[in-house]
């Protein structure tokens, strides 16, 4: 795998990754946000965008999070935090919650990843050397949401690539990822045409800078924009 350092410019912080990912969430969508950076998207929705948030444990339509550690244990989200009651919410059980997911009724899910392959395979539930992991709702979401956005750091431990030719970690789902938003780039996985398209780079980062930190071969399709 590619390992580089000497970044040409600062990388985006986690909040900035979430903020960029939030820009791709379309008003009125039913959305499931994974834990970590994905969950932070909720703090950065563009004006006028309202989403219908779904959490695996059985809520649709929640919004504001209480501070972690406060709140009512019977009003939890799937990340173990406690949202507030919002008019228009609905509660349901896990059977219905996963019928919604598996039935393809979630418009977008934003998830974290350990690896994404050039054809959109996703690994995000187990590091092989640990030997044990947690799947939760990730396999159902990745396999069945209409759109899968990955929000993550581009590299790990120095400059080890996470966007790879083939995932070496156990898979979560095959050929599921549509878009990857990282601290240095926005990348589209164009599965239909078997291309990995670099759409945007962080300020100060060139195509070649991003390619050097990405194992999968990138292509441009028109101009490469700026994440700023």
């Amino acid at each position, binding site marked *: 795998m590619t390992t580089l350092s000497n970044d040409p410019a600062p990388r985006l912080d986690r909040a900035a990754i979430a903020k960029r990912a939030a820009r791709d969430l379309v008003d009125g969508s039913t959305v499931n946000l994974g834990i970590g950076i994905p969950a932070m998207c909720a703090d950065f929705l563009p004006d006028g965008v309202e989403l219908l948030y779904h*959490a695996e444990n059985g809520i649709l339509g929640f919004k504001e999070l209480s501070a972690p550690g406060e709140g009512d244990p019977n009003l939890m989200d799937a990340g173990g935090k406690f949202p507030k009651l919002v008019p228009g919410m609905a509660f349901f059980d896990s059977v219905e919650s*996963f019928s919604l997911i598996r039935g393809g009724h979630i418009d977008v899910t934003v998830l974290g990843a350990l690896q994404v392959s050039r054809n959109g395979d996703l690994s995000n539930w187990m590091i092989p050397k640990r030997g044990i992991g947690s799947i939760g709702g990730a396999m159902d979401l990745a396999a069945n949401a209409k759109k899968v956005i990955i929000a993550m750091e581009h590299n790990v431990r120095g400059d080890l690539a996470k966007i790879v030719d083939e995932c070496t970690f156990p898979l*979560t789902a095959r050929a599921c990822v549509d878009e990857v938003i990282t601290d240095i780039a926005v990348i589209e996985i164009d599965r239909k045409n078997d291309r990995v398209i670099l759409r945007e780079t962080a300020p100060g980062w060139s195509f070649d800078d991003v390619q050097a930190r990405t194992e999968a071969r990138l292509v441009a399709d028109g101009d490469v924009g700026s994440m700023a």
Partner: protein
Amino acid sequence: MIGGFGGAGGQPTRLMLALRDLGVGDLTIIGNVAGISKTTGYGWPDHLDPIDQGMFFESGQATKITCSFPVPGTTNPLSDIEKAWREGNAEVDIVPQGTLIERIRAAGAGIPAFYTPTGVGTPVAEGKEHRDFDGRTYLMEEALSADFALIRAQKADTRGNLQYIGTSRAFNPAMATAAAVTIVEVDEIVEPGGIDPERVGTLSTYVDRIVVREAGDPLP
């Protein structure tokens, strides 16, 4: 089977403590997010000490768990389940959450097996029947039942109808249907009519025993 999602809400915590105190062994546990609250605080308000299914591995009573989320993302400190697993004292069967709840629902609904798109091409597909419908590949998954379901509801009527509140439903209603004996822990027991017929979350037919919390119980 132990109900809830993971976290304090919807978890039959008093029944779990009673099962631990009973000391019975060789247990196989079925749960969802399991055993991560004690080390991470997952799903528990800050001012409370979390209690989770890990206790049955700490006590040596359980030898196996089927669940979707048995270990937290970080390894330090190790959860009781990961500790037992590393020491070779626990078999851990990790199932995608949607497949797990649907297998439990299937057991209660008289469906021995169904096909799901979830898990195709991943380690959970190993050894399972693959089958194509309309050009997409699916896995066959079988029903999952249990001898006992320990579940949690807000209240029961004397017939055994249950009412849930908020996100405390989760795995409880399906588990109630899928066990030979279903035991429910409730805050309150009311006369028939004390639960709105439009709000019954589990039908009395599924409920075998009701245990009522003591008034003022500090556990959530």
